[in-house]
């Protein structure tokens, strides 16, 4: 059983929309796929949309955090969008703050934010 998360390219930006509950394998596969795609396309930014996700535990949070840090090392910027209120609350209560990441309400806002950031 191997599901892969599709990664789309739009100009200089990669767009990832996570549509279903992440299991551990998929999450790790995604990390690898994204880094490869970044390298291939020389993208400057990534938007990861989590709107349909209804919970994130510490493992997924770590994978996400790692993705963000690795992307940063590769010289690109990441915006996470669509974190649901319930997910945000549980993350905070877990003690996970995802400190150095840009966020936006939805994909559209996220792309705006990213483009402004890339122009600057």
């Amino acid at each position: 059983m191997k599901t892969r998360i599709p990664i789309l390219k739009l100009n200089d930006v990669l767009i990832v929309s996570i549509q279903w509950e992440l299991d551990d394998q998929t999450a790790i596969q995604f990390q690898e796929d994204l880094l490869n795609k970044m390298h291939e396309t020389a993208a400057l930014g990534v938007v990861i949309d989590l709107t349909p996700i209804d919970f994130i535990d510490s493992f997924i949070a770590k994978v996400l955090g790692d993705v963000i840090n690795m992307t940063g090392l590769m010289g690109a910027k990441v915006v996470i969008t669509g974190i649901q209120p319930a997910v945000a609350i549980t993350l905070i209560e877990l003690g996970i703050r995802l400190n150095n990441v840009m966020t936006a309400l939805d994909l559209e806002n996220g792309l705006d934010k990213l483009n402004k950031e890339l122009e600057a």
Partner: protein
Amino acid sequence: MKRSSVEIITEWDIVAARQLGRNEAKKAGFGTVDQARITTAISELARNIYLYAGKGRIEIERVTDGGKDGIKVVASDEGPGIPDLRKVMEDGFSTSGGLGAGMPGVKRLMDEFKVISEPNNGTTITATKWLH
């Protein structure tokens, strides 16, 4: 009271356990935020079993106490046990390179939290969430 359980043997059982938890939480009448809290707590406990004890089980039970309704999660295994309970309850303590957020996180996510663990004699963690 009604009780259901999932044996944790493979990684997929973690997914099964949290799905069961979410369904039970929904049935018990918890709102979306509490559903997420309960699901997340179960995910943490199930993954710890998988990672540190190899196998074990998650039991989910509807409970009542003096007119209050709630959900009780029992995570038990016959693994190596936790040598220093105080340490694992600190934020950021991990023996596996994880965030070390699981144990202290579960305690914050749930209303009641109890660990019984002995070296070489397994670990049993009980966590309860009450409907307000």
